[in-house]
């Protein structure tokens, strides 16, 4: 079961639909304690970084404990930004700090001086930065749907970057923690494939847990 975290930032309908289309069982826990049985956690999100403040200390601790235990975690859009140390959008709201760096506002000028609209809305391309199972079946330059004004920096944890006035992290991964700045649930075939790649990582995690369990029972 995948736990879909609802912190009141927009609607979860499209993420739920995409997970159902991929055959993934999902639930929206109402209490941090309900995360215990989750095989993976998805933090979706649209809107303002401030909204993540609704995930209080109990939620933060429950999510961090699951990650510590090896549970895969995916943050989407603002949910991904929350995985960093923080964001200039709401400087007083701490991120989870699982990824290095802070999110900054996208520039409103190209290097050439040409005006750029912020928010960045629409389809833009993914440039892979390294080989990653999350990018299986995704052609370099494949386009996905973005809608955001803030973004995380390109670091050694970035799997794919996107260019909009600056290069920012579109897809990140560190161990079993992943983030997608775009909306995979709104990105057509490419988006569903990226989501499926994440889900396939979960089943390999569950297999690993099962294997560990069997090993531990061996006399």
């Amino acid at each position, binding site marked *: 079961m995948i736990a879909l975290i609802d912190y009141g930032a927009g609607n979860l309908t499209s993420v739920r639909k995409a997970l159902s*289309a991929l055959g993934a069982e999902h639930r929206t826990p109402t209490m941090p304690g309900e995360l215990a049985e989750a095989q993976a956690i998805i933090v979706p999100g649209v*809107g303002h970084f401030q909204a993540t403040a609704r995930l209080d200390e109990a939620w933060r601790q429950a999510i961090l404990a699951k990650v510590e235990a090896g549970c895969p975690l995916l943050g989407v859009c603002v949910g991904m930004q929350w995985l960093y140390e923080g964001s200039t959008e709401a400087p007083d709201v701490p991120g989870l700090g699982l990824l290095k760096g802070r999110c900054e506002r996208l520039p409103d000028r190209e290097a050439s001086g040409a005006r750029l609209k912020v928010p960045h*809305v629409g389809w833009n391309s993914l440039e892979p930065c390294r080989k990653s199972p999350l990018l299986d079946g995704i052609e370099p330059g494949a386009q996905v*749907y973005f809608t955001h004004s803030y973004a995380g920096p390109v670091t050694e944890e970035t799997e794919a970057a996107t260019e909009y006035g600056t290069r920012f992290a579109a897809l990140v991964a560190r161990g079993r923690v992943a983030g997608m700045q775009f909306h995979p649930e709104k990105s*057509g*075939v490419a988006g569903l494939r990226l989501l499926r790649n994440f889900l396939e990582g979960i089943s390999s995690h569950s297999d690993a847990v099962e294997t560990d369990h069997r090993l531990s029972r061996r006399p």
Partner: protein
Amino acid sequence: MLSKRIIACLDVRNGVVVKGVQFEGLRQAGDPAALARRYNTEGIDELVILDVTATIESRRALADTIHQVAQEIFIPLTVGGGIRSEADADAAVEAGADKVSLNTAALKTPELLTRLASRYGSQAVVVAIDAKRAEGGYAVYARSGQTAASRDAVEWAREAESRGAGEILLTSIDRDGTRSGFDCEMTAAVSNAVSIPVIASGGAGGFDDFVDVFTRGCADAALAASIFHYSESAVHDLKAHLRAHGIPVRL
């Protein structure tokens, strides 16, 4: 590089697409879900479902239509037509809309934009502006072009942005249905006045009209309905044409 978006509009009434749909081989002609599926396969970037009657009876049909389309198509879906309250917006979002488009209600109650933006995020709030050329500017009309709103399109677009709108869907009443090209001057005037994306609508006749609106018109996206009905490959052919003219698209 950010692509220019091509958006198809489905005008529906009581669950049926009302503008002439002439796809060959489309078994359920007029079925919005079938048409949406078709456009999606052809590579459309986004869909808008517009309830052209917006009566109480058509509301349920609309919710069914949104649900059907949203169930199988994973690209952004906007719903408009008769959204007058938070409850109307909730129903559309609940059924599967990613964005709601407001026109008359936003003119009458601009605070509604702010309330919807704080509930769903600005990215979910589209303000539809219907305007025509007037002395010294562009006059906004409400009620499907029936009533002058005594507002200028550029000024209203700025206010809508400041109140929380995330996109502007700008329709030229002068050009709508004429197939004589988008109103590029009006589109550029609005697009350059705001930081949110502007979707140009009204007047699409040929592929070069799209080249014009993305260059001279400074549009971020362009919306059309009937132009996509004539050939099964219209969306793809249009995008290939745009790319050949140096305009970034998703192909």
